[in-house]
């Protein structure tokens, strides 16, 4: 009996939401795709040389990446709503030649061959949404989200050749961690039809996982070697997409 009451209450709430949807902000489900621009040390690179002993490296070598987003919100008032964002981004490494050259000079060898995988960042961020119509079809949107991220660092494999001899490769292993994250963003939403809008969004994303990096096949102390990486992973995400509005014909 109790479960039936709960079910009926939820159903009533849904009907009420639908009934008053037009009096409130535009609840939606949207899909966006775009580019993510890493910031800070995460997006920096350098040639790290150390001939006697290893050195840490705060640089993340993250290149601009592609990001896909699925988000939605339910507006409980004319301008404010609650919702969530699920996004996934990947980032190749940039300036790999500088990275490779650092190992080459550190070990004084003829050739180094560096093969990295990429960063992967998966976010689940609930939060507050804002919508303010400025023209009949154009709205300014904003969102402030706090949640969790699951980030993975690249594996970096460096093979070494000297005098025609291939020596053991240096491998910086990948690590994955879950951490708190936040995202704040703003954008424009243009209704191309009554229930369909095109969205342009810009977001600032921040998280700081505490990665523990294993290094395998490291036999001698020279060159770049990181055992932890707890630099912020922050980025500006610029995306374009469409949103399906929950509206009535």
């Amino acid at each position, binding site marked *: 009996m109790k479960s039936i009451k709960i079910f009926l209450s939820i159903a009533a709430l849904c009907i009420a939401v639908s009934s008053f949807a037009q009096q409130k902000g535009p609840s939606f489900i949207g899909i966006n*795709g775009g580019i993510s621009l890493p910031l800070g040390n995460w997006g920096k690179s350098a040639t790290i040389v150390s001939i006697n002993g290893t050195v840490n490296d705060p640089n993340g070598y993250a290149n601009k990446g592609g990001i896909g987003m699925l988000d939605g919100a339910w507006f409980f008032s004319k301008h404010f709503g609650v919702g969530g964002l699920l996004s996934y981004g990947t980032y190749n490494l940039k300036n790999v030649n500088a990275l490779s050259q650092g190992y080459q000079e550190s070990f004084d060898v003829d050739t*180094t061959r560096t093969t990295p995988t990429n960063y992967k960042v998966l976010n689940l961020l609930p939060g507050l949404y804002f919508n303010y119509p400025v023209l009949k079809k154009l709205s300014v949107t904003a969102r402030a989200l706090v949640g969790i991220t699951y980030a993975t660092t690249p594996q970096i494999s460096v093979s070494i050749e*000297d005098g*025609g001899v291939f020596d053991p490769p240096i491998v910086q292993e990948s690590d994955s961690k879950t951490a708190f994250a936040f995202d704040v963003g703003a954008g424009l939403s243009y209704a191309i039809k009554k229930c369909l809008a*095109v969205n342009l969004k810009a977001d600032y994303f921040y998280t700081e996982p505490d990665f523990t990096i294993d290094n395998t096949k490291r036999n001698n102390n020279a060159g770049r070697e990181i055992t932890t990486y707890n630099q912020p992973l922050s980025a500006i995400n610029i995306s374009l997409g469409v949103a399906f509005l929950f509206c009535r014909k």
Partner: protein
Amino acid sequence: MKKYISMGHPLLFALVLISMITITGCNKNVQTVTPALPGNEFLTTVELQLVNTSNPSDAPLAISTQISPSTGLYQADSVYSNLALLSLKANSTYNGRVIILDETQTPFDTVSNEILARENYHLFFFQPSPIDTANVIITGTTTNIPITYWNTTNNIGASDTTAGGVSDNEILITPTSPGIPLNLTVSRTDLDNNIPPMQIGLQDRYVTGAASTGILRVVLRHQPNAKNGTYPPGSSDLDITYAVKIQ
């Protein structure tokens, strides 16, 4: 009242999806090959500087060089070994060091200082010869060169193992091939910065026995990320021989 979600412009929807897939799909793994850096130094001259521990005035110096004594110029295909002779006292102990020079530079570039700076992946080997089979001991701390890396086809110069010259070959003394061994043992006395530390060989100890003659082959192994105390990993930066006379 009919409620529906409009699909809007299918073309626009497809465009957004394709752009997302394209952007994400561009993240292919990259591989970079960094070619050799220009300007590597020459290892033109290798000196063995020894000092008798009980008689500092007994300080033998043996020099192997690729600088022509007559022209003073670097000869890539020649080794001048007229000064490559170690005269040692019998039953004595010497402290020794290896000095490597690049005499094509003015002033001379002391390459052994760079070897010291890069100690974590360099290792010297010293092979006296003739030597008894039983005395060829291969461990992570001995200076002997495994027999498989010897030149044993002929006594002299059948195989060129030097950077530009000709090596004398090692001679193994066995019951079927008897002979008088060179009574010399060389051990390394310096340690690098690896964890745990490993030997380098720029600083050494020479211990002589009874009077004898032979050769000492000196090899510098460059073992980037491969140094483990043994001879095989890596490649040779230099491989030269000295005549040794113990009296």
